[in-house]
């Protein structure tokens, strides 16, 4: 298992290497990248910030949960902070397993939980020079606070 918050470009091949073993017949890699248009506005880049110590802790917890779900320790994730340009990779998730089904399931778990629970924020920079903190559109973070960390799924 591996999880890290980094301030350098993500090397996806190194993430794959962390989970690749002869026993595994499937490796699933998910990459999140900076999109050039969001809600109809032209984006030039995204700035990521975090409550870094807590983000590292929650990310590690999510990886442990995914490993239990997949019954495999071959789960890895890196999230990048700082200023990213369009097309750059902000997050990478790799899961390997003897069979593909569990690998897909666990990889999906990591990215979905990360987006709901890890205290990371992004501010989009637009072509017109303005910048705004992005408000999530899916689930309200308040949904899980009473359940505490690890709850609220």
């Amino acid at each position: 298992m591996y999880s890290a918050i980094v301030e350098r470009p993500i090397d996806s091949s190194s993430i794959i290497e962390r989970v690749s073993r002869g026993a595994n017949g499937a490796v699933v890699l998910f990459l999140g990248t900076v999109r050039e248009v969001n809600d109809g506005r032209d984006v030039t880049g995204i700035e990521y910030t975090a409550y870094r110590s807590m983000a590292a802790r929650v990310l590690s917890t999510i990886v442990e949960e995914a490993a239990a779900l997949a019954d495999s320790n071959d789960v890895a994730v890196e999230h990048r902070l700082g200023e990213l340009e369009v097309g750059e990779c902000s997050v990478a998730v790799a899961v390997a397993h003897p069979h593909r089904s569990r690998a897909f399931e666990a990889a999906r778990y990591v990215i979905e939980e990360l987006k709901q629970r890890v205290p990371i924020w992004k501010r989009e920079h637009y072509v017109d020079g303005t910048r705004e903190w992005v408000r999530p559109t899916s689930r309200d973070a308040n949904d899980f606070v009473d359940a505490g960390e690890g709850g609220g799924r």
Partner: protein
Amino acid sequence: MTVTVLLFASYADAVGRSQIEIDVESGATVKDIIEHVRKLGDATRLPAAPVVAVNEQYASRDRELRAGDEVALIPPVSGG
């Protein structure tokens, strides 16, 4: 007793600071801290019931605080 309040992203912008030391009476709760912080900044941009973490664990508004606790007000997260 003193607790440390951490603010991030839009909440830090609303208050103009990312870290505040606050003196509170013993028995104070997360709710008391939120009310205190909302008076320091633009309260329209700081919700009455933000998500909060105490010492890096998500916590409820009723959570009683101890001296030295680190209370973080967590805006809606948007990682990934």
